[in-house]
């Protein structure tokens, strides 16, 4: 593989690292929530974009530079990405279509939003699963008092009645939402 090949390979690895840190961090979720279809689309666009900027950056590095060009080109291309791409626009028939930065932003928004959605849905599904198990547990009221405080049983029963909901389901749901780790441990008993 020649220098250019190494540059692109290093830029691709750096792009993967950037994506697996950026999407969970920006979406405030865990990595496993982030790895949906839109994450991979964003990663492909990021790798293509970073490869282009690496190619541009590599040409700018002087031959006397002490750090091998394949490494410095890749770093400059990936981390100087934003600066370089801000000024690159796609034009079709001499009309501005969309700047590459807009494409990256839209792809990032989709990846982040998808991670947030997956996190919200899976969290709710976990809460429902726990609530369904705990609502039939004969010690439910004891758990509610223990983990949510005295008087909570009466409060939640009143709330369930006011909303026409099943009292045990409401109490179990309250445990699942407010004490997720404790209620998950109770389900394993």
């Amino acid at each position, binding site marked *: 593989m020649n220098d250019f090949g190494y540059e692109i390979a290093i830029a691709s690895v750096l792009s993967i690292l950037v994506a697996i840190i950026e999407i969970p961090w920006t*979406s*405030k*979720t865990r990595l496993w929530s982030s790895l949906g279809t839109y994450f991979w689309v964003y990663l492909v666009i990021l790798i293509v974009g970073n490869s282009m900027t690496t190619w541009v950056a590599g040409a700018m590095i002087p031959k006397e530079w002490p750090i091998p060009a394949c490494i410095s080109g890749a770093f400059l291309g990936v981390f100087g990405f934003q600066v370089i791409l801000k000024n690159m626009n796609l034009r079709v028939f001499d009309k501005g279509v969309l700047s590459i930065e807009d494409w990256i*932003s*839209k792809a990032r*928004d*989709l990846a*982040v*939003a*998808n991670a*947030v*959605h997956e*996190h*919200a*849905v899976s*969290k*709710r599904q976990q*809460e429902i699963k726990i609530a369904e198990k705990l609502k039939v547990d004969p010690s439910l009221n004891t758990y509610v008092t223990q983990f949510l405080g005295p008087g909570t049983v009466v409060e939640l029963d009143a*709330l369930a009645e006011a*909303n026409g*909901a099943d009292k045990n*389901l*409401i109490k179990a*749901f309250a445990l699942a*939402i407010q004490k997720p780790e404790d209620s998950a441990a109770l389900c394993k008993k």
Partner: protein
Amino acid sequence: MQPGVFEILTDRTAREVFKAVVRQRSINFTNLKKVLGQGVDVNVIVGPLTKLKEVGLIAEESAPLKDWATYYVTADGLEAERKLSRLEL
């Protein structure tokens, strides 16, 4: 983005509700009330939440009780937030 998005965000309460959801990415109704302030009237934020959902800036994961419903930002919401930040600068 759906039309009418920025008209909704000209309303101060809707903007505060939207920003609270965006900041947290996902938040339940109880915590949203806390973030918006101790004395906030529930009825004042339910309207904006509904409008924000209608234009697709946020989505809702429902629950047996309203207080436990989770609101989270969508891709359109993230884009709107970015544009709003640029306007406010």
